[in-house]
């Protein structure tokens, strides 16, 4: 959805809540605001820095200089004794106190589409089950039913690899506010023909009618519909969150001039306002040719923006309650191809978790000398998702009921990695 269409959203929200109320006991929270608050008002947030296309673990978090696969870049000592990362990330090297590096992802799927599916949902596709993606799950788990801000904002301005994802069985209520062309959502302002007073008056009248109707019918879906209207009102008032011009010049300068930097600043503004899940996609790392040149550019962007974001969150006291994730669909081959590129590789790659619930300064897992295989602490997508849920205080063994079928929130058999949890 490129635009946030108010009428469409109301329709979708209503449809989503109706479906939820009729099909799923666990997702029934939308019709029970009191329970919803108890379950979801945790004040925790997630910013996912999605490194679309697949960043090289060897040029970021798991360097192997001096090996045939190592590439030209050196490794540098970080603020954590004994922990070294690529010299392409000098700013992050001094900011690992709040970050855990996982070097042992073995997710096996090295295809963009399937890899995206896996790393977006924490499990492989299963016929007959439309499992929601991470953002939808966390919007559902962390969002507040009466929130006046969006539950889930996804920024993906590049076109390559752009996928919106689906909230699956959680319903359209948990689809993202998906920003592609502009960073400020379109069509959430009142039409010129309606004044704010008119809009408030109409809302009041609708509320009175709805309350009367609800008393007569005692249908829980009515409350959901009413809540959806209130949310739309809130969303319409939240456009200022996307306006980085409201930030002091010094803060804008700190995040820098790149689009990724501005989007990271928007992400901070959103979580500060209570948006539980923000995804910032930084495309496109698919460096089949000229891998080292590509990573010189993109790592500089990642290094600056990620370190500024972590600093900003920390200074505002938000990092304790905000989990910052760097992840993509896979990593890149240790083997350097004839175009000085690296190809798709999912057998031994890296990601990071920073902030909320994370034992900073941790390096978990190990790859062999050339980065070809995981030799310690192998972690699959389900384990990673279980770890993310655990870091946020969501029991990884929690189940959703889809019809009469219990579906665990993390994939079957997955376990959180206790070593990276605080």
């Amino acid at each position, binding site marked *: 959805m490129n635009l946030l269409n108010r009428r469409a959203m109301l329709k979708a929200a209503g449809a989503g809540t109706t479906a939820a109320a009729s099909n799923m006991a666990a997702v029934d929270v939308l019709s029970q605001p009191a329970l919803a608050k108890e379950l979801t008002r945790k004040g925790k947030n997630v910013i996912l820095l999605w490194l679309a296309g697949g960043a090289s673990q060897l040029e970021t978090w798991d360097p192997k200089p*001096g090996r045939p696969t190592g590439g030209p870049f050196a490794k540098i000592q970080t603020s954590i004794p004994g922990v070294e990362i690529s010299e392409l990330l000098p700013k992050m090297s001094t900011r690992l106190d709040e970050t855990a590096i996982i070097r042992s992802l073995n997710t096996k799927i090295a295809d963009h589409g399937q890899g995206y599916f896996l790393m977006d949902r924490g499990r492989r596709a299963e016929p007959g089950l439309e499992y929601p993606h991470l953002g939808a799950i966390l919007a559902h788990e962390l969002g507040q039913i009466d929130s006046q801000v969006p539950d889930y904002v996804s920024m993906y301005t590049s076109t390559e690899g752009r996928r919106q994802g689906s909230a699956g069985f959680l319903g359209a209520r948990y689809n993202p506010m998906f920003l592609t062309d502009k960073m400020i959502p379109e069509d959430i302002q009142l039409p010129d023909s309606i004044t704010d007073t008119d809009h408030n008056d109409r809302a009041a009248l609708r509320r009175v009618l709805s309350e009367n109707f609800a008393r007569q019918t005692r249908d829980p879906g009515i409350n959901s519909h009413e809540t959806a209207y209130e949310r739309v009102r809130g969303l319409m008032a939240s456009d200022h969150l996307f306006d980085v011009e409201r930030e002091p010049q010094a803060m804008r300068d700190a995040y820098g001039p790149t689009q990724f930097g501005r989007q990271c600043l928007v992400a901070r503004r959103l979580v500060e306002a209570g948006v539980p899940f923000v995804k910032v996609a930084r495309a496109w790392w698919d460096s089949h040719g000229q891998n080292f040149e590509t990573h010189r550019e993109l790592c500089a962007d990642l290094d600056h923006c990620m370190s500024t974001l972590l600093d900003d969150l920390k200074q505002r006291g938000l990092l304790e309650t905000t989990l910052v994730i760097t992840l993509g669909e896979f990593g890149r081959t240790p083997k350097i191809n004839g175009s000085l590129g690296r190809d798709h590789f999912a057998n031994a790659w890296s990601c990071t978790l920073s902030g909320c619930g994370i034992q900073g300064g941790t390096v978990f897992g190990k790859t062999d000398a050339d980065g070809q295989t995981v030799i310690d602490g192998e972690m699959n997508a389900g384990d990673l998702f279980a770890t993310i849920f655990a870091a946020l205080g969501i029991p990884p063994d929690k189940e959703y009921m889809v019809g009469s079928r219990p579906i665990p929130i993390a994939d079957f058999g997955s376990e959180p990695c206790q070593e990276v949890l605080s």
Partner: protein
Amino acid sequence: MIPSTLKKTDEWKSSEIVFCLTHSADLKQLWCAGSDFKVYQYDTSAEKPERQAFEGEGHTSYVTGMVRQSDSLITCGYDGQLCWWSISEKKLIRKIAAHERWGRAIAGSPDATKIYTIADDMLCKVWDAGSGELLGTLQEHAAQTPHHFPSMLYAVTTSSDGKWLATGDRIGHTAVWNTETLEKVAEIETPVMYTWDPRARRHSIGGIRSLAFSPDGNELAIGGIGKIGNIDHLGGPARLEVFDWQKGERRLEIEDNKKKGLIEQIIWSPNNEWILTAGGDHNGFLTFYDVETGDLVHQDGQSGHIHEISVGPDFDELFIAAHERVARWTMEATSTDETPPEPDESTDDDAGK
């Protein structure tokens, strides 16, 4: 004459990426270096040449450039170091911290007294080839691209009379320098060499990868790659532009879509008849162009991207530094109305660099 036949006569494979090489005047010795940080010598006259590594703690990253000055090899690398190696003793004899960023290339002056190095600190530094003393620093190229990402300084060359020096960067900017005064005397823009993808992938690719003056020094050939649709790959046309650099006029603009990729090196024939370009994408190409018309007159290729070539003094043989191999090719012309130039012992190995 324009070479019309190219033939690969030898190939020595290795597990490394070979980025740079040079050879002796009699072509019996070949020196090369690359992704394993070492410098090697091949005895190319042997039936089965085996490479011999030089001794010493030299580079700690990819070795990206090499020139020979009498008994020394001088190399630069991604570690920013500049290393002098004794050919006769096959060992490291001097090491200097030359640049704070990744060293990209090196060129020697024709009189063998100076060397010029470039790096991603966007500086060109002038060194005394014998003593290693820093003689000057040339600052011109922007540290960042117009899109706020780190730029890179890829190419450097000198004119055959040693009067002029040219440096070229990622965004297609070339500066020409007077080597005596170290003053900038001209600027040339070749923006097509730089592809910025603002929409799909939001990063860039390309850059000026090679430079060569004409024998009289009046023209400058600039090599790289044209606009690329999918910047995940080197799938763009090999691009060559030739300028009358003092007038700032472009005389030739050539793109080859048959064998795509970066032009990594340009050799301008001493008789000013042809220009040889070498480079590639996943594979390598060798392409001859008519200097006057810009027509592609002969082309061949090989498996593995070509990073550098070194042409023999009679212009009938060349060595290739490529992905996981070194190769020797012969060149033959259909007619022979040219007398090859007499090789200069002190500079023969730097021809065309």
